């Protein structure tokens, strides 16, 4: 009983952090959606962005922002927001299909890695749930583990322990996997490594400065990974493995908040 009370009091304590001004949100969303319907993408975009600036982290919101950007033919920005949406909810089907479509419109063809069937299967599973689901799963597994240990201690004190020990190992393995997955997802959620080229064209140099030799020229919408930062120059790596330095104002990082 005591514990429950503590939990509930804590919940009450924490809940104001989550609570948003729901009225304000609904109002803004209404405006934005109406504007979108009227093809006033500018207004819609600014309304959606207002919500984002109010610390609302939501896959649907990012998806809508991406759509507004796309309608204004800002492909790079649209890709960033689709990626953001997928960061929050990797299983967001609409964002997934829109991103796939929009990537066909970029100037540079981005070769997706053709992994083996097994790794593709695992990746699909990995992307089929979001961070919180994996956190929940981890917690549940942890609870089961503790319960099993308690049962082992009490009920099986003077009995054959092989079954509970086997179950404990099983749960332990699952727990390790789910913890790893959760950690990776958490890392990805907070990572600021993915970036998308937002300028029309960007030139990659062999060093941080225009005096170095040119390595490549890429266009808006190219997805890359940031490996190093040097003042306002970034060392990026393209999906095909080529690396080069790029000025930081030519790309935007896919980062949540």
């Amino acid at each position, binding site marked *: 009983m005591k*514990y429950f009370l503590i*939990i509930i009091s*804590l*919940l009450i304590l*924490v809940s104001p952090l*989550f609570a*948003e001004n*729901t009225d304000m*949100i*609904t109002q803004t*969303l*209404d405006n934005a*959606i109406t504007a*979108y319907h009227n093809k006033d993408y500018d207004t819609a975009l600014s309304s959606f962005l207002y*919500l984002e600036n109010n*610390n*609302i*982290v*939501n*896959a*649907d*919101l990012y*998806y*809508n922002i991406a*759509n*507004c950007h*796309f309608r204004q033919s800002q492909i790079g920005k649209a890709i960033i927001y689709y990626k953001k949406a997928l960061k*929050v*909810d990797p299983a967001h089907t*609409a964002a997934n*299909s*829109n991103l796939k*479509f*929009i990537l*066909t419109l970029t100037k540079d*063809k981005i070769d997706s890695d053709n992994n083996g069937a097994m790794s593709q299967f695992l990746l699909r599973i990995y992307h089929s749930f*979001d*961070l*919180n689901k994996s*956190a*929940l799963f981890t*917690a549940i597994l*942890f*609870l089961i583990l*503790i319960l099993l*240990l*308690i049962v082992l*201690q*009490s009920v099986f004190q003077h009995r054959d322990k092989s079954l509970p020990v086997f179950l404990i190992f099983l749960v332990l393995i699952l727990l390790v996997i789910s913890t790893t997955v*959760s950690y990776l997802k*958490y890392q990805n*959620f907070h990572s600021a490594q993915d970036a998308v080229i937002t300028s029309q064209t960007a030139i990659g140099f062999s060093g941080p400065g225009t005096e170095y030799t040119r390595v490549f020229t890429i266009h808006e919408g190219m997805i890359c990974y940031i490996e190093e930062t040097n003042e306002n120059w970034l060392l990026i790596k393209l999906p095909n493995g080529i690396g080069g330095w790029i000025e930081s104002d030519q790309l935007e990082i896919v980062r949540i908040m």
Partner: protein
Amino acid sequence: MKKYVSLLIFLFIAIYASAADLGVTAYVNRTTVGINDNIKYTIEISGSDADKIGTPNLPKLNGFNNQGVSTSSSSSYTMVNGSFESSVTKKYQYSLRAKRVGKITIPSITIKYKKKFYKTKAINMNVIQGSNEPAPSQGKKNNSPKSSSGKLSDNMFIDIDISDRSPYQNETVDVTYTLYSKYDVTSLSFNEEPSFIGFWKEDVFTPKRMNVQRTTRNGEIFNSMKLKTYAIFPTQSGNISVDPLKVDVDIRTESRNIWSFGNTKKYSIASNKINFNVKELPAGAPTNFTNAVGRFHLNSSISETNLKVGDSFTYTLEISGRGNISNIDIATLPEINHLRFLDPETSTEINSTKVNGKKVIRYLVVAQEPGNFTIPSLSFIYFNPDKGQYITLRSDKYTLDVMEGDNIYIPGTTSQASIHLEGSDIGFIIEDREMKSFVPWFDSILYWLIIFLIFISLPITSMLMKRQTQIAGDLNYQRQKRANRVLKKYLKLASKYHKSGNPDFYSAAQSGLENYLTDKLKIARGSRKDQIITQATHLGYPDELVDRINFMFNRCNEARFMPGGFSQENIQTDFTGLRNIVADLAKTRIKGK
């Protein structure tokens, strides 16, 4: 005939006599002899089994007297590809003498061995008057051009073998140049090769190294070497002449003394000119005739006739035979709908030993759609010079059955373009008015709190359980705890009786007190009142309280033995007394724990 004839005639020497085969040759030392001269007629048998054959029986020779036979044998052992081969050569030398002047023939001799017959060639002899025996000094120097007979052209020349001197246009003509020499040729170089103007020429044979063989030509033995073989195809009709082939040869001369190996001498030799009379092809050629002249066969094959969509098969046309294979054309396959013919792969093979070859045209075909298809018969027309007429060959007709398959045929283009989407657009926005902010639980305190609670529940429960087992093991502690409960129960009962004025109040009060005290004082249930009192005093209950308890027990005993002797007021008083006792007992702490 010349005055000097060759001294030795070898008809044939089997160099590569295999184990079972025999080589049998017969030759004479001279073909032109004087009537009084001895003729050495030699039968040479070679092969591994040569020893097993007895002296051949010479048939009756007309015009010759057989004056006796002498035998000699020689053995040679060779290692060929790691296997050991022995070869024995046995020579039977007959001494013959001519009976008359004129042309006499030594007939062919047959030797039978292991059911096989080996025949020698007949030799024509020219017997003249007098003696034709060479001087002994000359006879030994037969290898030297100086001492040998007459003109160089008799002893060394280039022979031309031509398959046809009056060919049709485009007909294959084989021309082989062979060097014949009685001398020891050590090296050879081509000086001038014929240009074959008016012909289309293919080199069929060119020697890679000196390869001199012993051969007989018109009954005389020569060192021979094949120089060149050309396959030529006249491209125009009429009289065409071909320039001679010229070679330079080095010949080893006889050593003058035993200390030197002899010198080499260079000679230049030219072949004769060749004159061809090329015939025009007869009129009346079919329209599809593509200048193929020769003897040809046409074969066609198909790798598969039952297919699925997307499968591929090969369709092969093969023209083989003798003729101008390399520049013949075959009618190309017509386009067939839903079958995709990839560019054919053509290979031409010319056999070098015989001038023939084949041309193979291989189509790789991909079935694009299901259905039944027919690959039509193709015709190939050529002119056969032997028959002097045009001949049409037809390939087989093939019927294909293409079924639906799993493979989808994607038309191949040179560079693969990305799939072009048309009429496609992004999905519409999501009109959800409730946009809850996503907070990763890993960032919330609550999540970690829950995890912590789950975690500490393990030591808590284990502690609790430990306590439980401790309690279960301690009976006295349990009794003490129970005592209060028991007292309460009886007190309740007593209070009920008291209200109704029932004298059972006393029995309830006594049981309650007794049970409570026995449990509390840790003495056996049902102990005597005195024991209880003693123990209570011993354990440090105040004397005043012990007295009151004693008094209460006495009152209860009295009441039990005198039913109805107690009034309502007594019960009331005693109830108050009992309550005071209970209250005081609860306050009192006993020692000795």
